[in-house]
């Protein structure tokens, strides 16, 4: 059993589930942190909320990208030459 009683056709579905859940969670966290920060530190301005939410979405996107394509490390390119460079 390679993937924990999960058949191969469900791989993508699992990944999507993980992505969407991650997105919701991270966005929520970002939003809350933004609200708190804006309330406490930034004198009730609106931009920290948006910034923090943006951070949350960005982090979730990066993690999603990582699950879909684990070899796409930023700053590294794989050259198809029967020898791969990574890290």
């Amino acid at each position: 059993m390679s993937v924990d009683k999960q058949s191969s056709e469900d791989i993508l579905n699992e990944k999507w589930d993980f992505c969407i859940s991650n997105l919701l969670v991270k966005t929520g966290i970002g939003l809350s942190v933004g609200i708190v920060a804006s309330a406490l530190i930034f004198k009730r301005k609106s931009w920290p909320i948006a910034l923090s939410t943006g951070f949350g979405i960005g982090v979730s996107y990066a993690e999603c990208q990582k699950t879909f394509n684990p070899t796409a490390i930023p700053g590294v390119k794989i050259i198809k030459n029967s020898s791969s460079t990574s890290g």
Partner: protein
Amino acid sequence: MLRVMRPATQARSTCLLISPPRQRILQIRFASNETAAKPTSTTPTQKRKFKLGKFLFSITLLSGLAYGGAVYYSLKDDKFRDNFTENIYGAKQVVDYVEDLQRQGVFYDMKKKVWRIGSKYINLPELSEDNISSDKISEFTSKENPIIRKLSDTIRELDNFMVNHDLKHAGGKILSRARDELRNLSNNIDQLKADEQDLCQKKLEEQNEKYNQIIDKYENSMDQQIKDKEFALKQQFDQEKRELYEQHYTQLNAELSRQASEHDKELKNELVRQAVDMQRRWVRDVMIMVEKERNGRLAKLDYINKRLKTLERFCIDNTENLDASIKVHRLWCALKSLQNIVEQPHRTPFIEQIVAMRRYFSTDEVVSAVLSTIDDSVAINGIDSVSDLSKRFNTVREEVRRASLVPENGGVFSHLLSFVLSKILFRKHGLVDGNDVEAILARVQYYLNKNDLDTAARELNQLEGWPKKLANDWIISARNHLEVKQAIEVIETQATLSCLSIA
């Protein structure tokens, strides 16, 4: 013409002074003069006819004469000769040829001939005779000595040269002196030759004598030596003959004795063999007699023994056959149960059957090899039936469609895009050609509809990238199914074979 006219006019003007009858006569005369002068004035105006042949001939003649004159002059004058030969074409060869002829005295001969012929008719002065005639010199040319001949040739050339250059008087005396000396020289040489020849002849005769003597001496000694050698050889020959004779005699004796001993041995062997033979016959005869007396009881016992042995063999064979047939029956039962399980509509484990079969058929190579190819995990979980697989394929197909447009290293967005755009792709059905995802899926569906799982699995294996990853499990499952089916087939054939081989 004008001049002619002037005196006429002058005459006419003067005759006016003379009496009229004389005037008239003078006038008539001058008038006729004038008329006589007129026709000559017309001829100069006529053109002279131009004759080409005559012109060419005269030109050739003049140039030939000029050439000949130049050649003759060049023989006499050296400076002119150099100029001439350098600048005019072909002059050098002509001058050289003429000089050769002169050296050979051709001109001198011709001159003499002409002089002789001419002196018949006219009183010509005699040709100067104080040049050395070539006859006098030619007496030396007949000599064999090549050096003297060369020398005479040179002197003659010198003579000719002097004749041609008119130096006769100056060198005449010197030349005659040379001639005398040449003659002396030749005589001297002849004398020397004769002397030498005599000397040589005498020496040769002496040598001849000496050598003849030596030869005679040697001949005698050689004869003596030959005689001695002959005698020695004859002695040797006699001795060798005697030795050979003795050797041969001893060899013969040895051979004879050896052959005699061998013959003896042979006879003894023969004797022994015959004795053994007779012994055997004797024993057999005794047995027969005893047999006869005991009413052949011995033979009967033997007979019974043999029968017993055959029965034993039969018995053993029978049991073996029974064992084998039991085995085959067992194999068939197990096989049937396995087939039953495999044909179940849903997954059922068949591990027990496999274990049982392994236990029964540990001796059979083919069956045990085949059973070892089936994975334990597969046996424990069972395999999917064809209908199950077809149903599963539907979901697989949808998933594959969704991921069909993802490139090799696609990220989130490429997956998303593929998901969205695949909804608007056309769906294919039936046996279509092509290597794209849709065509492959259509072909797999077609084969599944025909229940051809093997080809369907093969086709699906041709996917690449993400679609293949998604379809991987399905392919593995189909493969297991096919493997187990194949194993069962092999075992079936093996069972049939063993069935037949018993019977």
